[in-house]
């Protein structure tokens, strides 16, 4: 299996060492990992309605993915963009080719959970975290159960579920910039549910949500660290 790890554009900005965490986990599973960085799935432009621009960015990603059997993405949102929307931006035979390529993209946590060597990982980490379910992971990818099953494999870790888990944190990409008052209102509701769990570490598959929640936590004086699942698993490796 030739596996590529795609380090999404915003992750390179906010959490430059996250790709390293993900790589260590994949290597622990026995995968040989190449890195794809400096690419974007096109979602920022796509969600704003600029499809030509989204397509040209997404095309670079699909090209970089050539020759790999699987492309692992440390973001549920980017994964859903590639698998659900990107192929639709191409016409005719190119669409078929894009669909073929897109089918090789997998969200990191679900990929790890389904990996044949997942059972041999010997994950162990003492502590308590809460889990934030990203909307795109939950509703576009339907991967909530896979992710929580993976968290359940970590010995010594208590994972608390949020009340109102299905509710959006208010990020939504450009939405959070264009409608800050509304986004902030949604975030406040999410922060209440996070605070109520009593944890100081919140984990999720999507650092985009986590950055939003963390920005709100700091702004309102809530003590909270936000970790990607990759960071958590890397810490839980032997």
């Amino acid at each position, binding site marked *: 299996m030739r596996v590529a790890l795609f380090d999404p*554009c915003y992750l*390179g*900005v*906010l*959490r*430059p060492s996250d790709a390293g965490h993900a790589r260590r986990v994949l290597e622990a599973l026995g995968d040989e990992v190449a890195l794809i*960085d*400096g*690419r974007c799935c*096109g979602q920022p*432009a796509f*969600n*704003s309605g*600029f499809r*030509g*621009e989204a397509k*040209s960015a997404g095309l*670079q990603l699909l090209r*970089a993915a050539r020759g790999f059997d699987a492309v692992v993405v440390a973001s549920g949102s980017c994964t859903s963009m590639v698998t659900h*929307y990107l192929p639709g931006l191409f016409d005719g035979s190119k669409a078929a080719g894009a669909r073929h390529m897109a089918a090789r993209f997998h969200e990191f946590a679900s990929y790890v959970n389904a990996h044949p060597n997942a059972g041999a990982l010997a994950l162990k980490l*003492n*502590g*308590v975290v809460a889990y934030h379910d990203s*909307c*795109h992971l939950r*509703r*576009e990818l339907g991967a909530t159960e896979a992710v929580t099953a993976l968290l359940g494999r970590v010995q010594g870790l208590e994972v*608390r*579920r949020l*009340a*109102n888990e299905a*509710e*959006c944190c*208010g*990020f*939504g*990409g450009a*939405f959070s910039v*264009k*409608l*800050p*008052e*509304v986004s*902030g*209102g*949604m975030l*406040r*509701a999410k922060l209440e549910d996070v605070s*109520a*769990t*009593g*944890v*100081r*570490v919140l984990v999720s598959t999507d650092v985009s949500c986590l950055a939003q929640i*963390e*920005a*709100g936590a*700091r*702004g309102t004086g809530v003590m909270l*660290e936000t970790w990607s699942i990759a960071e958590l698993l890397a810490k839980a490796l032997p």
Partner: protein
Amino acid sequence: MSAYRERAATEIREEHPAATLTPIMRKLVDDSAAMLTRGPADARARATAARAYAIDHLEELQGQVRANFMRRGIGYHRAATDTEAVAIILRLLGDAKRVAKSKSMVGEEVGLTHALRAAGIDLLETDIGEYIVDIEGRGPSHITAPAIHLNRARIREMLARGGAELPDDDPVRLSRFVRDIVGTFFADCDAGITGANAVIASSGRLMVVENEGNVSLGVSHPKLHIAITGMEKVVADEAGALAILEVLAPSATAQPLTSFTHFLAEPDAGQERHVVFVDNGRSRILMEQRYRDILKCIRCGACMNGCPVYRAAGGLSYGSPYMGPIGAVLSPLLWPDGRYADLPGASSLCGRCTEVCPVGIPLHRMLLDLRADAAPKASIREKAAWKAWAATFGTARGARAASALGRIALRAAGSIPLRRGAESADPRLLPLVEPERDPAALTSAAAPRHPLAVVALEEISTEPDLETLFRQRAAALGVLVVAAAASRDGDRHLRATAGIASTGSLVLSGPAAARRPLLAARRVVVHLDPALIVRYPSDVGPYLGDGDTLILTGASRTADIEKIIVRGIHGSEELVVVVG
């Protein structure tokens, strides 16, 4: 700043809509999901199929409706535009002066209330929620719960503005106060205007659902009944109408069915009935492959109940008769002049709307398509920004440089608020690059403030027989189920044509369905033969006959004030069923 943002920011700052809406909507969404599980497993699929068939055969079904209306003596009217709809209704009203109107979203769409009043008509909004928002003067904030943005104290204020002297803000008192005004109006009124939830092509009957009994009054008391509805609201047959019923009230208000489900046939002797089908852009939407499915909508409001944007900023922020996700899609399609062009942006694309829609409308995908349609009209600045963005991410070198710049900028910015000003509703600081880790964070969790989700015990899975189920479900609605009931003064005794177990409903046909005596009775006693109980609403088709039929599901009620149920609005609080 977009018009939506301006309105939303003002609402959030001045009205705090989330404080009222969030707890109510959270409970409603959970209860709706639970209520849907009481129906047949394929209810949503069948409702979706019924609506899909309707929009695929729209003109054919309209032709059948027209022919059946002719047979029944119901007036058939088509309005191409909003102004035409108003003109037709004004002509039908003739010299009618006092008009009782019940809830109609199409009525809001064409500006009916305002237009009729401007023409000198004394119009009363008879739905309790609509009556309240009519005083407030800002329009409904939700398609099934118009006054949901107002708490009881504000509603008392509104009623006081209308001249009411109320000692407190008890929802029962407030609801009954409006009920009495409406009841008095009906004693002397010339025409009733209602909406219609579906018009059945194969039989030419109108299906109208309501809780309070104001529609019951509107279709029975005045000499003239006019229904206004969208031209897409046709459905092939009774089976299709019942399929819609099975998801409509559960999705809208977490009820099994509304108190009253009317299947209206020919008008009574001396009465006139007309239906006005409004196009107002629907034919155009029907031609649009990407958007035509929006015409499947049954106006339940589940999408706004589930929408976090709606909860945060409220329904009035949309500035349109249609709010929430359905409003963000439908408004720019119905009014393509650009006035609602920014509404598709009022979504984080979380997909909850699509998930809860009972007729399978891919709402969040339509929002994406509408944003793409609007992109050519974006500002030069925004267009240039996306061009530059695409150029940057066109090469790996450019993208890496952008990431590096982003990191440098964020690190330099440090901990500053994303937006300044004490009034800012936005609590965020700029995000940190690679925030520091506290080794103790993982092991210093406090006890959870609320008990964590507990896996509920499985409901007892033995399926009760139909009669037992009927008794349970009817009792849950406050209906008294007995073996015998001695006659009392003011009783109305009726025999049901059928009963529906899963919803605790009673089917009344022909003379038994007469609304006037039903609503006037002090107590309604319905006799039901247990052999006539079916399981689901969709099984009741053979008992619906071809004439006037009424399905009663509990006593008349309202939940227009803070979703608190008040029983006994128009019509008796006391509903007794004698099974045997």
